[in-house]
């Protein structure tokens, strides 16, 4: 019995050890990863972000080097907090919280302690960093803007948030990522691929040799350059014209769907969101809830389209064969469509036909042909849905599918919408209840880009390409089917001729005759759109929005655009003038009508915008 003790002890020990070793080495896989974390250092090589050019090859956005101070918390040895804080231009408290945050993110992975130093700060720091174990400087590239415009198109780049790091494993703390605009939309194209080298290192943090002969290393891949469809000159001019106004301009090349300009006002200088000043400036822009400079009105603002919508109303009526081109309609300053209900109209020659109806923007004419369109069918429900189908084929009520990250669908009501609104079948509703749609003042809501796209479809007599902002990636023209497939409207080609004639006559004798562009046959349509705001919970009407759509030249159109100027009153007053100048600028490169230009540049609407905030009673539509 006594002899057994050593045998029992040894056998038990061997058994215990083998089990424990089996568990440590075979069962528990976590040590492999930990071991790699401890002994392998990754050195990243961030490639240059792709450049952004305009359609003519003019450089809009380049790069400049920037330097982040990073720290790996586990490797940080004791150091003089005060000294480092003053080197980094941080308060000692701030430095401490940054380090604590880094611990929470990961003790083993690098976190940014202070981002985006300038080259000069870097040179000074570089000589002194070796004293601080666990800290190092990571080179990255920041944006360098060649232009002061297009901020909302371009977007900006910023450090990835914690959320994005866990969602998408590609990003790490301190990585930069595109936000908004093409920077966000084409992030993966622009950023390229980060390269990484693995080194075995020792406990003193020295690199010993490449890990596994560099088996896991990758070479960085430079980001691709983008050529946008934007015409930088036209864009700059558009933003200049919109100074002191709010609204948007969208200019499209009808033959390709390429967006030539996408102006939203007010905007900001893209350089404000570069480097260390980014977060302060961003906060300022973000909290400007009155002007909303980060809000892309050209894509996101929804307005009642107003009179330009009449062109579409006319097209649908022709397609549905409910009106003859020569048919005369009388207008006695309005149209009474139900007992005691009347749609007003302004003073113009009467009677009108289709062409003159557009030229004079006669409410009565379009109200009647719209009513006929809806009433052609047995029920107003059916009528509305047919009408909606036609309108939808112009890209209204839909996101359009363009390549920018923000947008609104707008509103194109269908029978369900009115059934709900009028509580059908408890109550009946008829075409007359939706009559305001005829003149773009009903339930229909559109964004400027939708209206510009519809204008391009009219210019093309029945088709369009989805608007897009990308022209070439690394000199390779885009082949994306989405942007190279013709979208055809439901309206037959021949019906466009009278509408286009009417839009041309708008400039000949109609509502925009003083806006003619010398030597160019322009077609367009003015509009005003009633709008309301809430002041102290009360619905208050504001000065109408000024709206204009146009394309030119009449035959072989090169440019189609939509302009919205908030509270600009008459369509021809602000939006029309701006449209006319934009067309002249794009097609002739020179502005001959300097008086017109001066008027726009010297007139702002800031007084108008201040009215609702003044706290005093005010007048509108002056």
């Amino acid at each position, binding site marked *: 019995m*006594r*002899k057994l*003790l*050593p*045998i029992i*002890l*040894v*056998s038990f*020990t*061997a058994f*215990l*050890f*083998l089990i*424990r*070793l*089996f568990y*440590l*080495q*075979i069962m*528990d896989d*976590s*040590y*492999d990863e*930990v*071991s*790699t974390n*401890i*002994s*392998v250092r990754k050195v990243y090589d961030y490639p240059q972000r792709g450049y952004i050019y305009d359609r003519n090859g003019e450089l809009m956005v380049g790069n400049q080097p920037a330097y982040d101070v990073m720290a790996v918390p*586990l490797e940080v040895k004791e150091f003089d907090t005060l000294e480092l804080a003053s080197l980094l231009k941080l308060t000692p408290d701030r430095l401490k919280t940054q380090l604590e945050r880094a611990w929470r993110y990961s003790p083993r992975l690098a976190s940014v302690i202070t981002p985006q130093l300038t080259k000069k700060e870097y040179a000074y720091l570089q000589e002194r960093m070796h004293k601080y174990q666990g800290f190092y400087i990571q080179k990255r590239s920041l944006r360098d803007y060649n232009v002061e415009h297009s901020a909302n198109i371009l977007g900006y780049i910023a450090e990835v948030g914690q959320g994005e790091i866990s969602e998408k494993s590609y990003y790490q703390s301190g990585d930069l990522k595109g936000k908004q605009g093409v920077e966000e939309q084409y992030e993966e194209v622009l950023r390229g691929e980060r390269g990484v080298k693995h080194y*075995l*290192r*020792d*406990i*003193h943090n020295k690199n*010993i040799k490449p*890990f596994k002969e560099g088996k896991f290393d990758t070479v960085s891949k430079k980001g691709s350059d983008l050529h946008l469809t934007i015409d930088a000159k036209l864009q700059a001019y558009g933003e200049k014209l919109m100074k002191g106004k709010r609204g948007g301009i969208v200019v499209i090349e009808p033959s390709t769907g390429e967006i030539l300009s996408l102006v939203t006002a007010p905007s900001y200088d893209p350089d404000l969101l570069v480097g260390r000043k980014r977060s302060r400036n961003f906060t300022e822009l973000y909290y400007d809830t009155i002007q909303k400079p980060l809000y892309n009105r050209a894509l996101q603002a929804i307005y009642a389209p107003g009179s330009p919508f009449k062109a579409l109303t006319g097209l649908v009526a022709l397609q549905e064969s409910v009106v003859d081109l020569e048919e005369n309609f009388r207008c006695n300053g309005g149209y009474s469509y139900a007992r005691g209900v009347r749609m007003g109209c302004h003073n113009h020659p009467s009677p009108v036909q289709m062409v003159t109806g557009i030229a004079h923007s006669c409410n009565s004419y379009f109200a009647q042909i719209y009513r006929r369109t809806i009433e052609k069918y047995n029920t107003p429900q059916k009528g509305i849905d047919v009408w909606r189908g036609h309108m939808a084929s112009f890209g209204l009520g839909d996101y359009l599918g363009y390549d920018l990250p923000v947008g609104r669908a707008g509103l194109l009501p269908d029978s369900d919408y009115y059934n709900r609104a009028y509580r059908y079948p408890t109550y009946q509703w008829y075409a007359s209840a939706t009559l305001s749609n005829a003149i773009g003042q009903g339930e229909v809501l559109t964004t400027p880009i939708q209206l510009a796209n519809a204008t391009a479809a009219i210019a093309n007599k029945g088709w369009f390409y989805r608007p897009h902002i990308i022209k070439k990636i690394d000199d390779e023209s885009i082949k994306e089917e989405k942007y190279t497939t013709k979208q055809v409207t439901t309206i037959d080609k021949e019906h466009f001729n009278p509408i286009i004639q009417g839009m041309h006559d708008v400039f000949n004798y109609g509502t925009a005759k003083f806006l003619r562009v010398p030597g160019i046959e322009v077609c367009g349509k003015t509009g005003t759109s009633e709008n309301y705001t809430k002041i102290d919970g009360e619905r208050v009407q504001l000065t109408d929005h000024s709206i204009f759509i146009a394309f030119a030249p009449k035959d072989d159109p090169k440019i189609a655009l939509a302009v919205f100027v908030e509270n600009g009153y008459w369509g021809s007053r602000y939006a029309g003038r701006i449209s006319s100048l934009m067309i002249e600028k794009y097609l002739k490169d020179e502005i001959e009508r300097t008086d017109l230009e001066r008027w726009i540049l010297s007139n702002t609407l800031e007084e108008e915008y201040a009215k609702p905030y003044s706290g005093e009673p005010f007048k509108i539509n002056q």
Partner: protein
Amino acid sequence: MPKTLLQIDWLTILIIAILIGFGWGNIYSTTFVSPDESILDLSKIYGKQLLWIFLGALIGIVILALESKFFERFANVIYLFAVLSLLGLFAFGKTIAGQTAWYSFGSFSIQPAEFVKVAVALALAKYISDLDNDLSRFKSQLIAFTIIGIPLALIMLQPDAGSALIYLAFLIPLYREGLPHFYISIGFLTAAIFILTLKFGFTLFAPIFGVLIIIVYLFNKKNKPKLWKYALISLFGIGFSYSVNFILNSVLLPHQKDRFDVLIGETNDIKGSAFNLYQSEVAIGSGGWTGKGWLKGSQTQGRFVPEQHTDYIFSTVGEEWGFMGTSIVVILFTLLILRLFHLAERQKSQFSRVYGYSVMSVIFVHFFVNVAMVIGLFPTVGIPLPFFSYGGSGLWGFLILVIIFLKLDAKRKSLN
């Protein structure tokens, strides 16, 4: 001498040679700087170890050449010298890392505690083999414990609690030679209560222990001992458990307490007190089935495990040779210990048997404590892995220990 060579147990020599060779390979891996340098470079740890191995072999040959009666005859003298060498440390010793455990000669140091084990084994064997002594008698027990206790106390004073712990190994030969069950039982019970109290705390341990005793009392129908014995055991257990908290908080030094806390997972300060164990576990754990290959372990080559060429050498095996390597080492040690057990049991002379048992037990306790520590089953105790860890004193101490026994074994027929 040639006759001795034929008679010694070559299997033991073979196992030890493999352990030393494999050990050196791992020492080289933890300390080499560039593969171009000579392995004989005496300024390098691996070079020195090679010298120790060579000299160790010479010492072995000298021992084999000695008359086998020499060891029994001079056991007491050797013991006296050993105790004096420990005492001398307090006058002439060199203090490294707070421990006065070395004699220093230029760039070389000798740690006498590594040799004292041989002396204690010899003295103990001589005392027990004396026909007048009987370990069932209290007086003999007391003297046997004194033989162990004097060097143990001196080593505790260095202070080197780890090396002192090894002397518990001598309980095994004492038990074999008739020490009452009581001591061993108390030993195991104490250890069990200690660990359980550490893990679960006094408040949880005490009631469970009490209930357990009652259950054993109620169901132990045959061979029923008296009730007061149960009461005494309960009292002892609960009392001891209660004192563990007190020991931990008031008796142990802070770094010793930390080591217990690390073991039971109370503290997870992987930058501080848990650093060694953590790095060691990571190195071993990342080895997988076959390891990362010799000289290719990223933890080893990054020198992340402190003291890896000495006390933590087993973690190199784990990382670079994987489960294959570690299990071979565990099996080799198990074979060695069982072989020594077999040799000890076949001795005709009680002196040889007690000595052989002591050799086996010392190697076993070293193996157990060192490996258990490195794989996180035992608190951090700084003792080497026999034949494996770097260190001349340790290597020579173990070689002398074993080779004396092999000599005795070779001559077993003429000894009795």
